[in-house]
């Protein structure tokens, strides 16, 4: 019983504070990359939240969700990186075109 | 080598089945037990590499964990204290690792240890660009990686 309470009153708040901190950075940005990393981080901390929660409620089922989170959270990072690259290329092509026109 | 490993696992399962205790400790115990057994029964029959790698692998894991912990503490210190002591920079690290797997593992391990971040591998796979937080001497840094992670990793993989 003590463990559950320890986790509940000590660990969960620490994690919660971490989540909030990360979210602060998400709000602050400044670049999209920071936001994407924040998102990734939030999910990863979410995994720990779920893990602790599953201990507190003695429901190991929740770890399954953590598993899925761990597996596919990564994909949104991949997607956003892809976006950033593509967008960057597009910008550069546009710049080049304009430069060529200037010449 | 793969066969050995598989046999090892198989034996572990047999052990667990026999004992009927499905606890983690029992698996671990079964694994060690069957490793020893296999070491004994295949001793001197040529393909002893497997038995050399496993201890190295275990050693590597501990090395990795130690590095992880050590550098985490370093960063932690930097993070909690008001001023930063960082001297960051992106460094070009020439690679001895050749195969995709080698390079990827190396890069990932470098990233996972604090203070360093593998940014990219050159297209000709000769150079790894690493972002480092505490960069005092470039050559020292490169040597650390080459003699530490890369060497140990390649020992295991090759």
């Amino acid at each position, binding site marked *: 019983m003590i463990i559950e309470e320890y986790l*509940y009153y000590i660990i*969960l*708040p620490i*994690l*919660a*504070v971490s*989540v*909030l901190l990360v*979210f602060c950075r*998400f*709000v602050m*940005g400044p670049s*999209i990359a920071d*936001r*994407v990393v924040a*998102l990734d981080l*939030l*999910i990863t901390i*979410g995994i720990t*939240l*779920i893990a602790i*929660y599953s201990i507190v409620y003695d429901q190991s*089922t*929740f770890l*399954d*969700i953590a598993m*899925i*989170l761990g597996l*596919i*959270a990564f*994909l*949104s990072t991949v*997607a*956003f990186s*892809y*976006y950033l690259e*593509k*967008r960057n290329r*597009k910008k550069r092509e546009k710049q080049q075109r304009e430069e060529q026109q200037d010449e | 080598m793969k066969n050995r490993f598989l046999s090892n696992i198989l034996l572990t399962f047999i052990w667990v089945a026999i004992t009927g205790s499905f606890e983690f400790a029992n698996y671990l115990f079964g694994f060690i037990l069957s490793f020893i057994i296999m070491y004994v029964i295949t001793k001197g029959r040529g393909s002893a590499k497997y038995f050399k790698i496993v201890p190295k692998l275990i050693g590597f894991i501990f090395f990795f964990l130690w590095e992880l912990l050590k550098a985490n503490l370093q960063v932690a210190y930097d993070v909690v204290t008001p001023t930063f002591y960082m001297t960051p920079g992106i460094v070009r690290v020439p690679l001895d690792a050749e195969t995709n797997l080698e390079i990827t593992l190396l890069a990932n391990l470098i990233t996972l240890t604090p203070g360093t971040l593998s940014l990219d591998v050159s297209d000709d796979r000769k150079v790894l660009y690493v972002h480092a937080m505490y960069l005092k001497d470039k050559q020292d840094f490169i040597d650390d990686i080459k003699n530490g992670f890369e060497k140990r990793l390649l020992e295991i993989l090759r």
Partner: protein
Amino acid sequence: MLIAILTGFVFAILLFFGGKNIVSGKLALLPALIPLSLFIYFVRFIKDISNNEIVHKTYEWIPSLGINLSFTLDGLSLLFSLMITGIGTLVFAYTSAYLKGNNYLDRFYGYLAVFMAAMLGLVLSDNLISLFVFWELTSISSFFLIGFNNTSLASRKSAFTALGITGLGGLLLLAGGLVLGSITGTYDISEMLQHKDLIANSDYYLLVGCLIFGAAFTKSAQFPFHFWLPGAMKAPTPVSTYLHSATMVKAGIYLLFRLSPLMGSTNFWNTTLTIVGLITMVYSAFHCLFRTDMKGVLAYSTISALGILVFLIGLGTQESFLAAGVFIIVHALYKATLFMVTGVVDHQAGTRDITQLSGLRKVMLPVAIAGILAAISNAGIPPSIGFVGKDLIYEGTLHLENSAILLTAFAIITNVLISYAGYVAGVKPFVGKLPEKFEKVKFPHFLLWFPPVLLAVAGFVFGVFPFLLQDSLVKPIVQTTGLNTSEIHLKLWHGFTPVLGLSALTIGSGLLLYFLLKPSKKLEQFIAKFDKLSPKSIIENVVLGFTNFSGFWTSTFQSGYLRNYISIIVLFLISLMGFTLLDGTTYKVDYSSFARITVYEVVILTILVLSIGLIVFAKSRLAAVVSTGIMGYSICLLFVFYSAPDLAMTQFAIDTLTVILFVLVLYKLPKYLNLSDYKMRIRDGILSIAFGGLISILALEVLAQPVNSEISDFYAKNSYLLAHGKNVVNVILVDFRGADTMVEISVLAISAIGVFGLLKLRLKSVERFQK
């Protein structure tokens, strides 16, 4: 009788399919045999009817609605049937010559046949609903007849106007009939007569009266709905002859006549009819003075005659009904003649402009005879039947108890003007000098001049021998009103009475007027100045205003702006919800039933709220998308906390995929601009907050209600034992509610196909239309 009616329809259908062959060439006269045989059929009934018999037939049609095809043949309907078929025969025959060589003669006959059948059905129906059915069919067929020259804009407009006015009347008739039905419990007029008291004492009496009047006045072109009739003169002359003088326009008269015994003898009924009839007859008779188109003259005089009929029915005495009955016959005979005459003139001389026409007797004597005879009958000069008719009118007005003198005076004025109209149309073209340009006018075809002559002569035969009509038709007609008929004696000569004096006065004034006032363009232009005040233009303006309003209303609501649509819908929803939810409810929520709040919940909720804020206020599209992702993941965590692992997994996977989709699409889009201004944002914000607030209140209220967990208990009990699964959510998905899932995967498949088609299918210009 049903067969009699159906004959026309069947014939029409035949014409539509093989028409060209039937009516082309020499067989063109054939169609006339149809009305002729029907005429003979109806003539056979004269004897029975004059013996006070009534023929009644009922066929079941829609018993569930109490609607039957029941037909009655009594004096009134016999008169109309004879007119419809008799004049119909002549018109059919006349048409074969008039429209000879017209490409669409088959169509024309088809319409005429439909019209004739419908008109027969109308006058024979005893059931008010079936009467309405035929009433509408006459409107539709007349639409086609008026618009026969369909390439002419004026024709189309007139057809449209006529249909609009008579269509409105028809709907009023339907409503009136249905009210009568709901009062009396039957739609059969003969049965209704037995419940006369119910009607008179009903709360609906006024309503029914107004509805019936609306129907009759529109159909019979009473002021202020009269203007469609002059417009309808755009139709070929046979149509004007048949529909717009002899038959269709009299349908309203027929209706009033028919319903008088049922609804008449009240102040409302009689006064309204008298006044409307009076206004109509005087107003339009006056208008005859200002027309130069022969048909225009005749149209206004027809309206005036219809006004006289309404007026007479409104008087509601035995004498006035007698006068009305006779006048129907009189008018049919002379007006049909005059129209046909006009048609011949138009057909041969190529114009109907009365100011140009004269002396045509030299080239078409029989036509001139018909015209002059008809004009005489029209003017009420003895020994024509017109004289009899006019006398009866004066007798009807003179013997009134109230305002006899005044009404008689109006009748005289009307008659004077009408007789003027008759001279203008029936005499003026034929007398005087034949202008040069008409010297080469050819003598008309036999079938063009014979029908009018026949009709005109008939007017004199009946004038000389009025007893021919007395027992056979006139008495039975009056009989249908339920009044005493024993004292009716039609005579040409009554001796020297005041009425005779009035007749003489009328004839004299009419002739005088004709000699003094010649129709001219000036007069026509003079009256045109008052067009703005005419009911026609007033109603046209109203219609125009209505159309403009329609455009305004439609484009206001259908503005093209999606956000307006959404706003209106949500506004509608929240005003209704707000009205019911906040109105008088005591807002009571049992907070004690709510679970305690924990730190991590607060953190997740905070993040949820903040991420929503970020989405709403994001400056970049990608930031909005990332924030949406965070929102989704927070909700996913909520699902974890509240025991929904399956949900959490699915939501998480789907959110990730959605992010990927967005990312794949986004970088192709243009800049993410904030396009709305400050005011708009405030407005939308208020609307949104109101919406969200109501949803929150609703949720809280529902949460305070007791729970019924019968169904989930069943699942909990049986999920493993009967459905062999322990994850109840999954068992529900694949078993208890598997049908949902089957549909759901179909939805997914469809959307994938849709996406595939949307992106891969680009129609090339060739493909766009070619098959």
